[in-house]
Every structure is written in C-alpha cells, then in structure tokens.
C-alpha cells in the first residue's frame, strides 16, 4: 500500500517492527547453528551469543604426583600444564576449594603442606617442595581460565560417524523418497478421473476425500499394525511406505484435482475430438500441464515424511538399520541430554535438507498451500 509510504515515521515504525519480528523468529535457529560449531566445553559453560568473545571458566586440575618431583637446586619440583594440550589462558588460580581464585598469574601461593605453587598465564605450573615427597596423589589446582572462541567441525564428524546420524540420514532418505514419489502417481490418475470424467458418485467421492483430509493418523496405528503383522509385513520399510502413501493420498488427490479441474476445457475436448483416449490425454496433456501442482504436493509430502517422528516410531523398528533421524535425536535427548554439541549438530544435520528444499522451492510450497486452503477450505 503506497499510501502508508506518505508518512515517513510510519514507514520507519513498520520497518522496525518487521525487523524485530524477523529477529525473534530467526534467533532460535541461529542459536542452534552457532552452537553446533562450538567447542563442547564452551557450549556447556557459556551461552551461544557469547561465542565470539573469550569464555571464562573454572576448573580443577590435579597436578602430577608429588613422588615424581625432580630435584632442582635445594627444592623438589613438580611441573606441567593445567590445560594439557588445549588452548587457554589462566586468569587466576588457587590451592584451596574455599579460595579458588586466591592468586593472580605469576604470584606464588603456598599450600597448607608447605608446597609453593606458581601458575603462568600459558598454563605452566610449578610446585616446589622443600623436601623429597612420597605421596602419589597430586595437588588439586583450582584454575580460572579464559579460552579464545573455538569453532570446530568435530561435532559434525562425531555425530555423523560415531553417533549414528549418518546411518539414520540414509534411513530417513530410504523412507522419504519412495513415500514421496509413489503417492503422486497414484493420486494423479484419481485426480484426473475426479476432475474430467463423468460417472455417478463423483461428488460423493470428492466429499469423502475432503473428509479424509483431517482424519487423525493416530486412528490408523493400532489397526494397521495388527494388519501388517497379520499379512507378514511386520515393522519395516514396506509398511511405512504404504502407510505414508495412504496418509498422503487425500491431500495429493485434493490438491491435484483442484488444479486439474482448473485446466482449460478446450484443450481436453479438442484432444477427445481428435480421438485421443483418456489415458493419452492424461499422459500427453494433463501430466505436463500439472507440473506445478505435482511439485507442490511433492514438497509437502517430502517435508512431512522427512520430519515425521510418530509414523516412523509406529511402523519402523528401532534397530540402527531402521531408526530415522528424528527418532535418533529423540533418543539422544534422553540419553545424551547434557551433551549439547551432539544434540545441536544432530539436529542441524536433520534440519539442513528440508531447509534447503524449503528455500529453493518455496514458490511451489506457497502455491500448494494457497490451493489447499484458500480455494477449497
């Protein structure tokens, strides 16, 4: 509406409100994306929004055993590094749990047993005893450290190869592709019949399809599981392909019928006059012309099947050869709930494909939504 543009303040207010809304909507996903690239220690000690700044954390490191001390002049010394081989910078340290940050870097602290301890910024520590030691338990060093932001691909390589997401990805793909392609073909023929062929009961069938659109899937679980077990399909890919085909068909037939019924009558009638059979008309005219509607439904069905958890839980087994990504992530939420880096990377792997499909084929998705909701209702 250009009229709103006549008032600059209003335009500003609208731009700002939209920016705010978009920010609100995007932030959760951005948080996940950033988290999935962070180092595991940093994820669990600081928020993802601090990912670019150095993160401070406190930890306890046990020094080497006193009996490994080597003589250095008149003292016996144990030395090492509190970080091991990880990067980091010591800010402060302590020798008692009551005062974990008692000393600054470079200062020398004294332990109750007389040992003199110093820690350098790079993590090197030096513990000096005045006499040789026998103990085998190293001193506990309390360290407050600052580590530079660490971004890594380790989380991804771990979930893909060690946590089974790679395998689950293949399983999801195995479920999704046939369950997307097969209903399209079946539905297209039915949609043509419902749109352009005259026969008694047609209106009733269309009403039936519209009714089936909203039947809750849960209704089908127990009867179909029993049926699958009776006929010997059991839990497996064949069963879930059939189930997804059944559950997707009402929308497929509905969307395609609406679209095909809207094609110009003259084309179809002139083909009939030329002696084309219904099969020819369908193959040569209807299919090529309905390409946008076919694409719309394909995207819907793809997103729905790829993202589905419930149908997979019911119709597939839980072995690694059948567990889909959503199912595995739910399991990880239970068993590895504290391992944020695993969760974040797994979730992002599962989100990546549908998001890509979404952004590249958005046009068709929107078109399908509009055909499904605005026109028919």
């Amino acid at each position, binding site marked *: 509406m250009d009229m*709103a543009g006549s008032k600059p303040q209003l*335009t500003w207010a*609208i731009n700002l409100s*939209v920016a705010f809304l*978009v920010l609100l*909507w995007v932030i*959760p*996903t951005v*948080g996940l994306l950033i988290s999935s690239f962070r180092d595991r220690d940093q*994820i669990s*000690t*600081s*928020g993802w929004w601090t990912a670019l700044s150095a993160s401070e954390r406190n930890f306890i490191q046990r020094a080497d055993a006193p009996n490994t001390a080597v003589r250095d002049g008149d003292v016996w010394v144990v030395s090492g590094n509190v970080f091991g081989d990880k990067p980091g910078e010591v800010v402060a340290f302590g020798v008692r749990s009551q005062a974990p940050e008692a000393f600054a870097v470079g200062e020398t602290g004294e332990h109750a047993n007389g040992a003199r301890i110093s820690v350098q910024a790079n993590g090197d520590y030096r513990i000096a005893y005045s006499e040789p030691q026998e103990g085998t338990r190293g001193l506990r060093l309390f360290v407050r450290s600052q580590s530079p932001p660490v971004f890594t691909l380790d989380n991804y390589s771990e979930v893909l190869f060690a946590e089974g997401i790679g395998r689950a990805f*293949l399983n999801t*793909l*195995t479920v999704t592709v*046939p369950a997307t392609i097969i209903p399209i*073909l*079946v539905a297209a*023929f*039915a949609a043509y019949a*419902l749109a352009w062929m*005259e*026969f008694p009961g047609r*209106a009733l069938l269309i*009403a039936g*399809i*519209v*009714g089936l659109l*909203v039947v*809750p*899937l*849960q*209704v*089908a679980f*127990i009867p179909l599981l029993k049926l699958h077990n009776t006929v010997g399909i059991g839990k497996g890919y064949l069963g879930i*392909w059939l189930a997804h085909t*059944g559950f997707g068909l*009402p929308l497929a037939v509905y969307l395609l019928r609406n679209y095909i019924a809207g094609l110009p009558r003259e084309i179809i009638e002139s083909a009939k006059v030329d002696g084309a059979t*219904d*099969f020819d008309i369908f193959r040569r005219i209807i299919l090529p012309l309905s390409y946008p509607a076919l694409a719309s439904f394909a995207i819907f069905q793809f*997103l729905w099947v*790829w*993202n589905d*958890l*419930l149908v997979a*839980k019911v119709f597939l087994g839980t072995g690694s050869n059948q567990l889909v990504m959503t199912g595995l992530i739910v399991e990880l939420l239970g068993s590895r709930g504290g391992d944020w880096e695993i969760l*974040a990377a797994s*979730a992002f792997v*599962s*989100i990546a494909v*549908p*998001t890509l499909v979404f952004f590249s084929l*958005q046009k068709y998705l*929107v078109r399908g939504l*509009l055909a499904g*909701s*605005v026109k*028919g*209702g």
Partner: protein
Amino acid sequence: MQQLFFAAGTIVIGVFGCVGYFYFSNILLDIIFPGRGPHAGRNINRANAIRPWLFLFPTLAVLGLYLVYPVFSSGWLSMSDAGGDTFVGFENYAWLLQDRKFLESLGNNALWLVFVPAAATFFGLISAGLTDRIKWGAAAKSLIFMPMAISFVGAAVIWKFIYDYRGADQEQIGLLNAVVVALGGDPHAWITIPFWNNFFLMIILIWIQSGFAMVILSAALRGISEETIEAAFLDGATPLQVFFRIKIPQIWGTIAVVWTTITVLVLKIFDIVFAMTNGQWGTQVLANLMYDWMFRGTPDFGRGSAIVMVIMLLVVPIMAWNIRNAAKEMR
C-alpha cells in the same frame, strides 16, 4: 548402501507398477469392449462407465485400507479389552472419564486449542499486514515462514537451547534465563513449572505455524479490492483503521480456514510434548497419552483406541464444515 538400492528398486517397481497397471488395464478394457464392430456404440458407453474406476481403483483401495477401515476398526477396538479380542462395551470410555491423566490431557488439549490457533493467526496476520508494506517484505516473509520446514523434533532441540536452566550461581546458557537474569530476575526451569510449562511448549508450535498463517493471510489481504481501501483512505481513515475495519472483515473466511487448519494440527500434537517433557510436569496431551497406552510394557489397545476415538470425535465438526464448504464451492 544396500538399503538405498532397495529403496531405488522400490521406486522403480512402484512407478513402473503404477504406470503398467494404468496402461494395461486401459488396453484390456479396450479389448473387452472394442470401440468398433457391431456393438461399437454400446461398447464405448460401457468402457466409459468403467474407465473412471480403473483410474480410481488404486487410490480408493489404499485410502480404504489405510484410513477408512482403521476408523471403524479403532471404533470397534475401543470397545474391546486390552488385547483387542473381547467386547467390553463402553468400559474403556468409562475408565477414561475417571482417569486423572486423561482429564489432564483433555484440559491441556483444550488449552492448546484456544491458545495456539489464536496466537499463530494473530502473529500471521500482523506479519502479513506489515511485510506487505515494505521493500524487503519477501525476504522477511521467507525467514518467518522457514520454521515450517523444521521438524517438531528439531524445533524441540532448538528450543531446549532457549529454555535451558542452570542454578542461579552459574552462567545461564539458555537464552530465556540469560535475559531474565540480565533483567535482574531469577532463573527458572521453565518446562517443569506446572501449568505455565504448557505455554512454553505451545510457543514452539506457534513459532512453527505463524509462517503458515502469514503466507495464506497475506495472499488473502492482497486479494482485497483496491476500491474499498481507497474509498476508506479518501474518507480519512488511518492505516490502522483501514487494516482492522476494512481489510480484516473482508478476509474472515480465510482466517477461519487458517484457524481450523491449525486446530486440526493441534488436536494431533504429539512430537513436541514427546520430545520436550514426555507428558511430565502436567503437560500430557491426548496423542501422547494414546502413544503411551499403545507402546508401554503391556500395550492396552482398548484404552489406546478409546483415546484415539476421542480425538476423532473432536475432529468431526471440522470435517463436516470442510465438506460443506467444498460442496458449496463445487456448485
């Protein structure tokens, strides 16, 4: 890898099977009722009467087996015992009415039913109204719409990072608690606070569904005739007045469609609750309760089916409304 070949094989067999069925059944029909010879006219009429059913048969068979039959079968099972064999009348329904978890689920579903469609439609309407007026509206729309592509499970993980809770003495890594602490409040374990945690779960679905509402409502808003809007502006209406008094009343029909579509989704809501709380802390919903009864140690098909039939019953009014609208449109 082997399994991908299996899937590829299925696609090939499925696609060729379908095409083959349609192709050969049509040829067969033409052989049985040839369109020439002494009875050509009668044969053509007969073939034309049968052909639609050849086209419809696979769809009707699958729909019948995978959606229609289960509705009746579930109805029957809901009046059977745990194993699904013995008829017990309305015993399972009587049990439902006194089961605390069922009543809790019913209450929560009601809460979802009121709150989610309303909020998603509201945000959808606002963002549709606003994004249609700015230059980068298309980009903004696509970002708000994007959560629609994310699975409920993925969304649950995303929002765990928002709702995470650490003790007050630690640094918060959940965004919500970090904001609360920065504003001087105390951190909370949001998803364990009875009653209010339902709303924290609902926010996830609202986040996903607002984009859907926006896309559809935005198309409806653009379909409004320019004349009414211009007339209102000429009469001195402010943009806000035009939006609420002129535009919204003209798209009531579409708002109703969006509202009912989300309502149907909400009735079936499962994944978010399953992944976030699994029904603990007073967040149980019907679909998750049904799943519980179906897959717990010893499944109870009778009670599970009774819960399903309740969901089905709640959907029926919307089904009737949809069919009526579709019938009206075809006339």
